[in-house]
């Protein structure tokens, strides 16, 4: 699209690729229409531009929640010759940003065949722990008195293995999102961090504000009907995950600070957190998968379904195996269940920086930029004269 402001030199503007050009084309149409401004953050953010550079496109792509409201309301959606489909165009660029901002960068390629990546990682995790169990115990069907799984794998061994992998995942995601933030917040236009902006962004993330459709009735899934179930299932998944994470954290504190070792009784804090979290992490992903299967095929990028569904399935299996382990920890199934659960958890942590998990990190960063920049005057107040 033609440059609007002749003052800005084009020389430093990176050339857009095919998917980015498509977002630019569609945003130019949307910016001249603006009917969707009430749905989410993408369109108000769009009105701050007359043209869209690569950084703007990466930012907008990650701001989009693929709620589908704009697609079903679009007068320019196919079969109109403009063929506007913002959720799809944004999804395609979004995947590219996960790929390109991944650290170490070559591993970003894992996004290209992400279903396979998660499958292989799960296989490897299972193989590792099953063979370790066999090596240590000589048998997969081992019972331990009181369900004491540390009898199979000592606490410190597990703590070391998982904290190393988790630490790497946090580092990789941290470097990735830092590079993303630097691009969307260039030195010449810094984003001044304000507490209120951080709080608002945090609330938008925690409440999944932009899956409410702008009117509170929810987003679109199968058709133009609104539903709050995607938001609810995502809440169950996210908060379920956080409770499970808290269960592990509390157990670690018990272990090191109180010298109180697992296994803990059912009515202990770590186990209760794990049960509630685990149930959320069963129901949430199951619901998300159900919605994903029923989604309007036009909404979002069909090619990313293996990534989405693979991640959902892995979360579900992590939770199911964890609850199974709890249920049968005092039987001879302990050895097998423990190996399966640890293998899946390992696969989850290993792939964290190269799976759908990254969406939460990048989207949170985009939402933070949005709450910061909306506190600044709109540099383009087109038409408000």
């Amino acid at each position, binding site marked *: 699209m033609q440059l609007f402001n002749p003052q800005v030199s084009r020389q430093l503007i990176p050339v857009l690729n095919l998917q980015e050009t498509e977002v630019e084309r569609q945003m130019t149409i949307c910016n001249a229409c603006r009917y969707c401004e*009430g749905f989410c953050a993408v369109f108000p953010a769009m*009105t701050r531009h*007359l043209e869209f550079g690569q950084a703007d496109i990466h930012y907008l792509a990650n701001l989009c929640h693929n709620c589908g409201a704009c697609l079903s309301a679009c007068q320019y959606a196919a079969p*109109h010759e403009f063929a506007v489909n913002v959720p799809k165009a944004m999804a395609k660029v979004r995947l590219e940003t996960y790929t390109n901002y991944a650290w170490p960068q070559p591993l970003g390629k894992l996004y290209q065949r992400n279903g396979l990546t998660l499958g292989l990682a799960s296989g490897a995790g299972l193989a590792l722990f099953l063979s370790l169990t066999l090596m240590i115990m000589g048998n997969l069907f081992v019972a331990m008195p009181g369900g004491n799984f540390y009898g199979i794998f000592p606490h410190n061994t597990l703590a070391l293995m998982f904290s190393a992998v988790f630490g790497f995942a946090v580092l990789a995601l941290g470097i990735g999102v830092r590079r993303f933030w630097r691009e969307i917040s260039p030195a010449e236009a810094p984003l001044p961090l304000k507490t209120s902006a951080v709080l608002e962004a945090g609330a938008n993330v925690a409440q999944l504000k932009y899956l409410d459709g702008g009117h509170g009735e929810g987003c679109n899934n199968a058709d133009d009907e609104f539903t709050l179930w995607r938001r609810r299932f995502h809440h169950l998944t996210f908060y379920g995950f956080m409770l499970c994470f808290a269960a592990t954290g509390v157990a670690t504190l018990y272990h090191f600070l109180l010298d109180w070792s697992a296994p803990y009784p059912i009515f202990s804090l770590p186990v209760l957190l794990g049960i509630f979290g685990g149930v959320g992490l069963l129901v949430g992903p199951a619901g998300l998968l159900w919605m994903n299967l029923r989604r309007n095929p036009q909404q979002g990028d069909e090619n990313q379904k293996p990534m989405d569904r693979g991640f959902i399935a892995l979360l579900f299996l992590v939770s199911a195996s964890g609850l199974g382990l709890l249920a049968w920890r005092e039987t001879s199934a302990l050895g097998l269940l423990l190996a399966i659960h640890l293998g899946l958890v390992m696969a989850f942590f290993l792939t964290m920086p190269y799976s759908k998990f990254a969406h939460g990190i990048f989207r949170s960063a985009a939402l933070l930029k949005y709450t910061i920049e909306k506190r600044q005057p709109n540099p383009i107040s087109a038409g408000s*004269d």
Partner: protein
Amino acid sequence: MVDVLVIGGGNAALCAALMAREVGASVMLLEGSPKVWRGGNSQHTRNLRCMHDAPQDVLVDAYPEEEYWQDLLKVTGGLTNEKLARIAIRASSSCRDWMRSHGVHFQPPLSGALHVARTNAFFMGGGKALVNAYFRSAERLGVKIRYDAQVTDIELENGAFVAAHLAEREVDGQRFPAERIEARACVLAAGGFESNREWLREAWGQNERGEWPSDNFLIRGTRFNTGVLLRRMLDLGADAVGDPTQAHMVAIDARAPLYDGGICTRIDCVSLGVVVNRDGERFYDEGEDFWPKRYAIWGRLVAGQPNQQAYSIIDQQALGRFMPPVFPGTTARTLPELARLLNLPQTQFVKTIEDYNNACHVGTFDHTTLDDCHTEGLTPAKTHWARPLTKPPYYAYPLKPGVTFTYLGLATDETAAVHFDGKASPNLFVAGEMMAGNVLGKGYTAGIGMAIGTAFGRIAGVQAALCAGFGLSPVNSELQHAAV
């Protein structure tokens, strides 16, 4: 036999179907287009002009009946029916709760549309979101909806509706036989004839230059408004209202698609620069009034120019001050270069701009008021926002007339009844674009089409249900009261 048959699938048709169904009538709605194109021109709309005496959710201040009426009187130049106009105006003050109850959401004015924050309530997501909501609600309430069902004939008996006829047709390779659908009452809400190129040609004729102006018109709205039903009703002797050349017509980007260009093809920089025709000459005061009050006259102005073509010219000073256009402007560093790129007579074009520049009496430029920047001794004058075009680069946007909808329609009264020789049909009603010409003889003001469509769609639905034997419920008694 179905109680109420609604022909059409836009806002007015849906309002009629919902109202009739709400009081218990069985309703069938026939949408002529396929499902993906449903909603007629309503899918391109964005707001409803609303009367209100005090601030109301998304509406600020007040917009009393009298002011609304005066605005309408001004844009139509008196070509309006006061009684019907006031019905639409009053209904606009109270219909939004009903609209919400069927799933329509309102939102504060869009950025770039703050100037209508007082007068217009915006649909969240625009008209297609509204149409989707109405269709969902209609389905839930049990309205039978059929797509690809264009009515080609109406069977009458002494001015009373008997049945609608669908011709034999092919949809997605499948053949459907001709059909005859009877109903106790019928609402016609199938739109104007703006997408009927032959009819437009017939209406606009040939001009003194030997051109057929309408051949150069673009249609901002649906490709399905070919006026088949309107023509049939006129042939059957229904009383007509309006001039076939009158329409909601704006100047849009000449590169817009032939149909369904909608809102994004508009060019909003006219008042910030000058407009020249194919001969490189100016032809009208670009700064006569605020753009929202003038955008609707520029379609006809451009239609009167040679080849129905014009160019909106601005310089760098205007950038960022108007809604971003969907197509890029033609850019040049000098005026002669711009003339070359646009294929305009260079000498005349440069002279026009220079004459204008020299005539500009620059005061304090302020696009938010009718400022004191104007030309002196120039014909035509530019009476506000006249600033010399001297800061390159220069930008040009090609303009063509864009028809939104036509005003020729069926004459009606406060019951929305179709009339034959001045006599109201007992069970045939009309709503939406097919009767908007009763209120809009010419001109346009934002959101009035939806106000008329909603008011008369609802009246037509109630009346149709009433003559099919379904009485007044508390929901519509108020409307009845307003209507009589």
